[in-house]
């Protein structure tokens, strides 16, 4: 096993543990926005898709780079926009109507 692979594996395992720790604390109320947020985070794959461009000098490379760029950018842009849209809806109190005091 190369040192680089060991380093990468270490990062992977530690990130996994951080993820478990952090995400375990997210309340069930927010599970859909959470999934949508993680969805946009895996949009980071766009970086990988763009980096294909560095070595792509053939039709095959261009096609793969193109499809990967379309996929990944749809993922990242759509993910963030829809997460933001959802989170905007979570309000502590209904903003409308004659100051009703019920609830908590």
């Amino acid at each position: 096993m190369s040192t680089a692979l060991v380093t990468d594996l270490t990062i992977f395992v530690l990130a996994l543990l951080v993820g478990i720790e952090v995400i375990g604390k997210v309340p069930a109320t927010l599970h859909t926005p959470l999934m949508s947020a993680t969805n946009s985070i895996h949009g980071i794959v766009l970086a990988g898709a763009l980096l294909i461009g560095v070595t792509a000098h053939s039709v095959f490379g261009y096609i793969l780079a193109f499809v990967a760029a379309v996929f990944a950018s749809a993922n990242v842009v759509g993910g963030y926009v829809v997460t933001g849209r959802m989170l905007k809806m979570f309000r502590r109190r209904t903003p409308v109507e004659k100051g009703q005091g019920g609830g908590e």
Partner: protein
Amino acid sequence: MSSFDTSIQLIYVLAAACFVIGLHLMNSPATARRGNQASTAGMVIAGIATLVLLIHSNSVTGVGWAVLIVGSAIGSAIGLFAARDVQMTAMPQLVSMFNSVGGGAAALIAIYEYVHDESSAGGVLGTTTVTTLLDVIIGAVTFSGSIVAAGKLQGLIPGQPLIFRGGRLLNIALGVVIAGAGIFMLTTASQPALVIVLLAALAFGVMMVLPIGGADMPVVISLLNAFTGTAVAMAGFVIANWALIVAGALVGASGGILTKLMADAMNRSLANIIVGGFGTGDAAVALEGAADAQVRAIAADDAAIQLAYAAKVIVVPGYGLAAAQAQHGVAELASLLEARGIEVSYAIHPVAGRMPGHMNVLLAEANVPYPQLVEMDEINPEFARTDVALVIGANDVTNPAARRPGTAISGMPILDVDQAKSIIVVKRSMGHGYAGLDNELYTDPKTSMYFADAKKAMQQLTAAVKTLVG
């Protein structure tokens, strides 16, 4: 590593830190929006670093730039359009499609690297190949599986479990082909073997999701989400990029946790769900003793009286509520009751919607304040102090039969609706829930059945409460 490469890697680490902070802020609805902003900032940083890297490499051709820019522009437009227009009831489909394209992009990266390495260096490094293989396999399974899942959720593919003869055998065969061709690739660089692995993995993804029923979708989406994360992390290994590894691991962890939560909420193992077939065959046997019991029907006026003179009401929404688009009607009725000083809260079962937390989003969209949305474990002790439990479109998750052994849903955590002083169930007919069981709650002497479409029922109840109390 040159100092330039080091700086870029450090910037990627910064982006990864933003993702972690963003997810951490998601632990409360009050800070969640800031979390999304932190995460977006991380993504912008990573994007800029990648652009700098591309320019610095000085080897992207003119065509290459055109391909990347046009591709990203098209993708962004599609993503933006989909995200802006999607109905909240259709969120699961959208999330599924994002899983699909994310996994697909990750697989493409590995495919490109493999073919590129092979043609330029005349062979493939062993270490690259293991992660390359995993990336292609997981990415391809996610890509096709998520499309099938989205199709089922959208109703384009029948939601019930699609099982055909020899299906399981075919899955095993596909697994063997993937493993065989994969192991061959570890020793010999071979493009045809890669194509075989890719096609078999795509077919496996389809075959994996087809037999899974519509109501198991919360588990499937979570699982595919975990797959996407893992595929992206593998892509990070392939191109030695820490940002992808960390982000992928975070998503993998999140998907894994949600998968477990959803499976626990249905008291079913993951293997049992994947094998599929729930709600068919022997599960549909009715409970003995329940058949001869009578149900009591109630009219809108009587239900309105019960609600209007209660001190504490718990609304129990199920997917039927969302299917009937009744969430706004419920919210209106609830705020009317609240204006009378009645304590109203919502009991949310973990699998009330079609994806984890789905019901919360649907109610939040209908302007229900989030402190009123209460999780199962928290609300269950409250039912005993509740005057009226209003069950709308929920079935199996309220069935007391789950507490006894020997039924199809035995052991499934349920909402203790039967503990309330009285129960009103809004339902179109006496039809069965997903598990094909009679719901013993309906024959409980405390229960009144209000037979109506959920949306109409809410309008009638709201009108009746208004006339009743002026």
